[in-house]
């Protein structure tokens, strides 16, 4: 058994710094590279891509990335674990195998974790008595069934552990928890018992710290952010894990950013609910038990983590089409920038009303004044404002109303208040709104499957 392993975070979301994974595998020693690509809305986008082309439906940045890092990973024995398989992990693995072949790599085992996509057997699930009730509203999914775009179960670390045990060099999953990606190599390397919930919680907490990339190593830091060194070359976080569950969060030397008590603490409180019950498929972690020790030199020890037995259900994330939205903006300059923007908003709203268009919501915000803090924004002296951007967003089930909304923006330039600019790129177009439906499903109703694809 290894006395420690180093797990590197390579992406905090799909669209994160392209070079981050390459830097993680080349700028210092690591054993694993983990990458989280999936947000709730991502699954529905991928599902739509797959419906148009059955060979798509995964994070398309991934094959390009693998082309760059695969030779390094093979040379150094670094394993890659990612949920970038989206709704089509097999096609993703095939694309990577093609790349490996072109790179003349001799041996490569890619594991795929599937079984999370329950859209096709939703009727069976409902028939068995599970109505996939919305966790927020308690509503049954039955009336929304025909509108569903995607429905995926969040698996945890265990299918990835199986993949590693079967010799995988790369593990591509569909919907897997971000934390499971990091916990899995610890279970595998240290032979942890899956019923030792303190250890499961320790790895889960490390996963939570890694899952948003540089957000724990100095990025988006609300403390003394001005003192963060060299954000341009920010180092992504690395979890140095030990068999007893201790984890040291660090980053490669000669990279920018910072790993400190404060930067790690900020990530710990990110997107959590009740801190005593951080629920994953692997355990229920108690974030109030975590101890942090700042060791200096960009090293923070995370220890004493306590956990409890996992629940008997998985979380399910469904999405369904729910009408359309559009956003428009115009920029007004000094003098009286805010007054002009407010007047334009009033004129536009009257025109929309006169046209009898149907909207579920019209929302106006003044960027430069109150678009982030709303009523908490302090009053401003009009004479000191250089410019204000008027931002108007609308939502409707009626596509035609939104199309017409898009035609009413540019006319404001010649038929409204003066010194206005910023209308480029044509009319605002209606975008499909994908609503999100969180639910629970008994674990016994779904079975994760692991398949190994070998280089031929």
């Amino acid at each position: 058994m290894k006395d420690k392993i180093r797990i590197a975070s390579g992406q905090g979301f799909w669209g994160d710094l392209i070079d981050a994974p390459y830097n993680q595998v080349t700028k210092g020693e690591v054993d694993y590279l983990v990458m989280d690509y999936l947000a709730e809305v991502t699954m529905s986008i991928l599902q739509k891509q797959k419906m148009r082309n059955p060979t798509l439906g995964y994070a398309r940045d991934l094959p390009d990335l693998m082309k760059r890092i695969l030779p390094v990973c093979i040379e150094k024995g670094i394993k890659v674990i990612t949920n970038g398989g989206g709704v089509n992990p097999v096609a993703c693995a095939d694309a990577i195998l093609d790349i490996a072949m072109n790179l003349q790599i001799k041996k490569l085992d890619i594991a795929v974790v599937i079984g999370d996509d329950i859209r096709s057997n939703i009727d069976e699930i409902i028939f068995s008595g599970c109505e996939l009730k919305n966790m927020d509203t308690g509503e049954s999914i039955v009336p929304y069934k025909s509108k569903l775009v995607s429905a995926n179960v969040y698996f945890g670390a265990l299918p990835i552990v199986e993949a590693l045990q079967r010799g995988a060099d790369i593990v591509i999953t569909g919907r897997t928890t971000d934390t499971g990606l990091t916990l899995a190599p610890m279970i595998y390397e240290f032979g942890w018992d899956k019923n030792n919930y303190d250890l499961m919680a320790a790895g889960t907490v490390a996963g939570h710290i890694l899952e948003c990339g540089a957000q724990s190593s100095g990025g988006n830091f609300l403390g003394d952010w001005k003192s963060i060194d060299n954000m341009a070359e920010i180092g992504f976080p690395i979890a140095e894990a030990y068999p007893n569950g201790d984890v040291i969060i660090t980053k490669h030397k000669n990279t920018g950013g910072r790993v400190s008590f404060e930067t790690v603490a900020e990530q710990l409180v990110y997107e959590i609910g009740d801190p005593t019950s951080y629920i994953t498929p692997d355990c229920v972690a108690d974030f109030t038990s975590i101890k942090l020790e700042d060791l200096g030199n960009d090293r923070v020890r995370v220890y004493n983590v306590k956990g409890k037995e996992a629940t008997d259900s998985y979380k399910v994330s469904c999405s369904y089409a729910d009408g359309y939205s559009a956003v428009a903006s115009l920029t007004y300059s000094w003098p009286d920038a805010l007054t002009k923007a407010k007047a334009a908003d009033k004129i536009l709203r009257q025109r929309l009303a006169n046209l009898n268009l149907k909207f579920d919501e019209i929302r106006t915000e003044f960027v430069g004044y109150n678009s982030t803090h709303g009523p908490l924004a302090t009053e401003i002296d009009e004479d000191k404002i250089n410019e204000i951007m008027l931002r108007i967003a609308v939502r409707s089930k009626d596509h035609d109303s939104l199309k017409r909304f898009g035609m009413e923006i540019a006319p404001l330039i010649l038929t409204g208040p003066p010194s206005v600019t910023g209308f480029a790129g044509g009319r605002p177009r209606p975008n499909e709104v994908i609503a999100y439906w969180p639910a629970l499903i008994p674990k016994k109703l779904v079975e994760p499957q692991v398949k190994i694809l070998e280089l031929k």
Partner: protein
Amino acid sequence: MKKRLLDIAHGRSGDKGDAANVGIIAYDDKGYEIIKKQLTKERVKEHFKGICLGEVERYELPNIRALNFILNNTLGGGGTVSLKHDAQGKTLAAALLRMEVDE
């Protein structure tokens, strides 16, 4: 003496569906005593009047000198439904740091 919360604490916020989570971390033990005492559920709800339209939940993490607030019914529907410029509540931690506390 009055102080801005910004001077004794930092934090981070994000989305959980239509709810926002706001985590606030004091820089030292003295600061934690202040936020623990003064950042009550009621005071935070009042602070976010017009932004948070639902209940406020409050949790303590004394181990990292932090409080976590869940602001229900805050993000205009959340996710891709929300029309808000800050649909994910990313700037709400900073918004809470505007609050004045007694030292």
